Structures are given as C-alpha cells and as structure tokens.
C-alpha cells in the first residue's frame, strides 16, 4: 500500500482528516478526485497553509499538510512554531525530499536542519521513516497521537524486512552476530533511508570481525532513550549516521541523553559537518559524501584504528611516566 492509498483509507474512515498542499502534489496526486473538498491546495503559500491548517485543527480537523521539507520547515517555521506549536494542534506536516533525497536540487532544497528545527518545538513529534512500508504503517498511530507531528517523508522501497512492527516511540533493532550476553564492538544508530546503507555496512564490518548492531530510530521525538542508553553501555563504539547537519540531529540527541545519564561512551558522528552536500543523483551523493555502506564501513574502521593508536600512545605515556 502506498502513502497515498493509506491516506485515502484514513480519510475515508475519519472525516477529521484534511489533505492540504502548497502545490506539492507528488505524493497525493490522485486524492483531489477522491476526497473532494477535503483536498485543499493553497498554491505556493506555505505560511498561509500552516495558518489555515491551525484554523482547521481549531475546528476539530486533523490536517495533513504537504510541501518540500525545506519550505515547510524553514519558510513556514514561525507559523509552525507559533500557530501549531503554541496552539498544540494536531497538524501533521509532511516534508518532501528531505536530506539527501533532494538529490541534485542544490542547497536551497536541502532540508538538513529540519529535525533540529522541528524537535525544538515543545511536544512536536518527529518521524523519520526508513522506507515506504514504515511510512504507511506509522500513519494510524500518528493520527491517534493527537499531537503535532513532522514526517520526514521517504517512500523508498524497503532495503530489508522489518523486524518489529511500528510502535510509536520505540526504535527497531537489527542485532549483531555476537552472543546475546556479549557487548558489541559497534552500534550504528540511524534513521530514514540510510538504514539500508547501515545494514550494508553491518555485513562488511562483521566480515572484518567487528560485531555490529544497527538501530533504526524511527521517531526522533519521542526518542527511544532506553535503547540509546543500552547501546552506549554495551558498545565499544557508538556511531550516529544521518543525512542532517551534525548540529541538532541524532548526534545532538544522543549527546544530550548520554551526558544527562552520565554514560561514558565513545561516539562517532557521520553527518554533514557545517556544510551543505554536493548536489547530484542519490547514488553519486552517497558515494561523494561517504555515505554508501562501503564508505560508512571504511570510515568506522579508520576511526577504530585511530582509537587504538591513541590508546597505545596513552599506554606508552603512562608507562614512560612510571
């Protein structure tokens, strides 16, 4: 079932649902003829769309609003924060082509601070589906939450079979090849379509002898804190992998949690550090930016080698002092 089909199914059974767009119909092209007046296209007017969605929500509706992720979260940010956020209204924001999925559009279209912005709004949910299956499975729970939600839209084909049904606020684990009572060498925390690349990296790293656990976060707000704390306690190296600026995304979330909990951990961020990415077609972006499974594995191996060198130097300093 596609996102559009699921949205139609929900709209048919729940007349609170309104589908809105700021002239971005890619994911909802067939809905106008099927839901009539409950499909509202405001034109290229993201601010008015969000304000109007708040007005509809005040009247008891649950609007799904669609625009490209950059324009939805940046152009209309103050409307999201002030009308939807302060109002605590159940408006569901669907941001198209987030992160690397904007491919060759260039920096104007690169939503790589969207999570940082949306999670900064009190009680705003943030859902980053790994693929079309997860996207569709989550929708009923998101509607039922009654909260404002940001969906980092991703309808890619699944890279692997899911291991756990969607449960809002719970992450999904792809365990390592180590015995259950042994700590893992590596845990990679990720979200969105990069789950597929993380799983490729898992295969490669485990072939090298590093037991590697993959965690698909699914929602970044609410965040599955227990799974992060457990990974920090039971991994030699914790990796956060994301197509987002390092500031404000998963690396920041993990840092906040482990500092607050006082969990000592070796954390490596694979993200965009203080810059936009090279615009190109997706496979080329991943290769150029070092986010393919192979390149992720290579970066992690290099980090482990550096850590070991550092450890050796520390030992040498220790012994030379004594």
């Amino acid at each position: 079932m596609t996102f559009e089909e699921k949205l139609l199914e929900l709209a048919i059974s729940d007349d609170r649902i309104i589908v809105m767009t700021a002239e971005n119909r890619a994911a909802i092209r067939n809905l106008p003829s099927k839901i009539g007046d409950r499909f509202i296209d405001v034109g290229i007017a993201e601010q008015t769309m969000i304000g109007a969605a708040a007005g509809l929500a005040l009247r008891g509706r649950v609007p799904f609003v669609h625009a490209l992720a950059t324009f939805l979260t940046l152009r209309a940010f103050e409307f999201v924060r002030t009308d939807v956020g302060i109002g605590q209204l159940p408006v569901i924001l669907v941001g198209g082509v987030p992160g690397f999925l904007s491919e060759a559009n260039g920096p104007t279209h690169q939503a790589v601070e969207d999570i940082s912005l949306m999670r900064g709004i009190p009680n705003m949910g943030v859902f980053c589906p790994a693929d079309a299956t997860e996207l569709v499975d989550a929708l009923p729970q998101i509607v039922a939450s009654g909260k404002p939600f940001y969906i980092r839209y991703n309808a890619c084909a699944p890279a692997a079979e899911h291991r756990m049904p969607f449960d809002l606020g719970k992450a999904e684990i792809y365990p390592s090849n180590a015995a259950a009572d042994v700590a893992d060498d590596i845990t990679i925390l990720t979200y969105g379509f990069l789950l597929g690349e993380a799983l490729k990296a898992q295969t490669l790293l485990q072939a090298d002898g590093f037991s590697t656990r993959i965690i698909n976060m699914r929602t970044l707000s609410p965040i599955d804190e227990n799974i992060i704390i457990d990974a920090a306690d039971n991994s030699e190296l914790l990796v956060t992998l994301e197509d987002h600026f390092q500031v404000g995304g998963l690396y920041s979330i993990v840092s906040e949690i482990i500092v607050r909990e006082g969990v000592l951990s070796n954390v490596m961020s694979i993200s965009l550090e203080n810059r936009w990415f090279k615009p190109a077609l997706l496979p080329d972006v991943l290769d150029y930016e070092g986010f393919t499974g192979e390149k992720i594995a290579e970066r992690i191996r290099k980090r482990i080698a550096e850590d070991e060198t550092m450890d050796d130097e520390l030992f040498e300093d220790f012994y030379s002092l004594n």
Partner: protein
Amino acid sequence: MSLNDRKYHDLEALALRVREHIIKMSTDGGCFIGASLSCTDLLVYLYSNVLHVSPSRVDDPNRDYLLLSKGHDVPALYGTLAELGFIERSRLANHLKTNDSIYWHPNRAIAGIEFHSGSLGHLLSVAIGIALDIKLRGGTNRVFVILGDGELNEGSIWEALLVAASKKLDNLVAIVDRNGFQANVPTEELSPLEPLAPKFEAFGWSTKRINGHDFEQMEDAFASFDLGRPSVVIADTIRGKGLPSIEARADRWFVNFSHDEVEQLLEELHGGRTTALTSETLMVR
C-alpha cells in the same frame, strides 16, 4: 440629542467603559494604548450588533469568530469581553500579574479569545482555516479578523488575501484598523499603503471604507456582505481615540503611565482637560 445620537447612545457608553479599562491597563507595566483605543469602537460595535457569540456560546461551533491579528491591541478586546460578561471585570486588575494570564498579547486560555496572536501576519491565515471548515460543514457563521494597518507590511497577509479570494470565502471578513501609524512612524512615511482600497479590490475582495468611530457607518458596512468573495472593511480610525493628549501621536504607541497620569487621563476621557504627560512614561518598545 439627535435621533442617531440616541440610537447609538448605549454603544457610546459601552465604548467609554472599555476605554476606561484600557487606560487602567496602561500603568504598572503599561500597554499598547494607541492601537487599543483606535479599534475600541469597532470591537464594541461588532460584539454588540454583529457577532453571533455570547458568554454561553464561546465553544459553540456555530458561533461567529473574531480573531485579533494585531494582538497588541488586546486591552480593547479584554475590556469589551469584560463589559459583555465573557470574563469578570475584576479580572482586568490582574493585567500582567503572575496570578493570572492576561498579558500584552492575546491568550487563548481566556474565555472569548479565539486564538493567540502577537506575531503579526498570522491570523488571516488561521481565519481562512476556520472559514474553510465552516464551509465544509455547511455552516452559515462568519469569521472576522482585525488587522492592523502596519501589519499589512507582512507578506503573509498578501499571501492569505490571494488564498481567501481563490477559495471564495464569503464567510470571511477582514477589518483594517487604519489608524495611520505603525510602531514608530506614520505608515505613509515608511511603506506607503495608499491607495489601499484598490489593492484589496485587485486581490478579489469586496471592499468598503468607513470611519471606524462612526456607528452609523458601521451599521451600513456590516449589514450585509457580498456572496462569492471575502470582504474587507477599511476603518479609518484615530490612534489614541478619546484622549486628545495622545491622539495621533507617533510617540504614544506603548506607554507605561504613572497612577497620577491614569487618574488625569480618566478625567480627560470624560471631557476633562488635556493631561500633561511626562516623557518618561512614553516608550517605544
């Protein structure tokens, strides 16, 4: 007293009481007095003669909505709501106090306030959403939005004007409190708005222009609205209306008067002599 004077006597008396409340809120922290006094007559008229809403109907889905988009004039709305029984009059004494939640901009937690505002250029869009839902449900109630003239600088207003016209929202009525000033200077000195009515007409809105302190003109303007398109009423008003010592002055936007000045201003409101205001109580925020 002429026939019309008698007809509008009660409205004038009500407006006078609302202005008293506004003046009393202009001390101990102060308020945006100029913009509050300019829209007082409009709010009094709308709540008395136009809006289908009452203290017992604040949650009725079939009520008329009034949204204050230029939220800093909220003392006029709180004064009106208090006089009409939506909230206790005594509550206005809690203005800016932590034992209540009546602050410089509208708070939806207070009965009769439909939505929060303060950031300019938002509530015309929110009103569109409410008006769309009323249409979807086949309702006949209306949504009124008070806009400031300075607020028309915001691009989101013009975005919303296009959208409202495209959706043929004839249950939506915008009212521009055209008091001629934005925060620091006359509107025409910064980003000139005139000719204003043709702008709204060009955007597909039914447009009327009236004196925003003349109840007779309000009666005509709000008696009926065009079908098939949204309406705007541009109401020419006077910033600080009712107090000659602050009327139409650029430096009377946000004020924090002394208790003595408040006493004098209350006398001035009732025809007493012009108050001598000290510069320290006049602020530009």
